[in-house]
């Protein structure tokens, strides 16, 4: 995996810490998150973006397109087990033929 050059300074994240913290805090079960952990979660998210974008792009390439489209990302989510948690927000596009009754 390509390593991400994050911001100008090493050991920083491109994602704003305060915003990431607010997103985390939406979970009422979470009591507190250390700033180191916050940093790790930010970085992990950057790697997640990197992976998902590249994997989606693979499907665009297979289709000989230069634009990554919704269906490419849907296929990427369907095909990778670790992305199962995303199936609710990316319902796979169902072919109309299947629904004829």
């Amino acid at each position: 995996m390509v390593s991400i050059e994050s911001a100008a300074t090493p050991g920083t994240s491109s994602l704003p810490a305060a915003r990431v913290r607010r997103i985390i805090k939406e979970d009422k079960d979470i009591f507190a998150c250390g700033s180191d952990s916050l940093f790790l979660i930010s970085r992990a998210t950057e790697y997640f973006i990197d992976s998902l974008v590249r994997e989606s792009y693979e499907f665009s390439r297979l289709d000989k397109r230069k634009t990554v489209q919704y269906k490419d990302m849907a296929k990427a989510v369907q095909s990778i087990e670790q992305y199962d948690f995303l199936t609710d927000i990316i319902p796979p596009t169902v072919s109309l033929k299947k629904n004829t009754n």
Partner: protein
Amino acid sequence: MSDYEGGPANDDDLSLPRATVYKLIAEMLPDDVACAKDTRDLLLDCCNEFIHLIASESNEICEKEAKKTIAAEHVLAALRELGFEKYVGEVEEAYGEHRQQQTKDRGRKSTKLNRLGLSEEELLRSQEFLFAQARMRFQNQAAQGAPDGGGGSGGGSA
């Protein structure tokens, strides 16, 4: 609203800043490849889900250790647990750099005094001494009569 960060006013709309994520996407794709707008927005939602997922799993691991604050090792364990081991190596590396940065910032503040090699007591004594000297100088000036009565520092109060 006094939200200086400029984030969404309503917490329900909370997500990562669009511009930042769009820029990351562009950096990750080849120059001649674009990403459709609805796809970029979808990615934003996916990021939210991912953050919630990792945070939640980290929290569970944290609670199992009877701790209340999510620590770095909880996050790393969560990543492994959720099948994201491939991120762990690079995240750990970034963590190392992060801590180096922090030590550098902290170090800059303390080395000047540390280098003198004086104990706190000695530092206090020398500070008192310097104050006493300054006081004497001031009193001498006053005794000689300061020129125009306005030469010293200290702004006049209206």
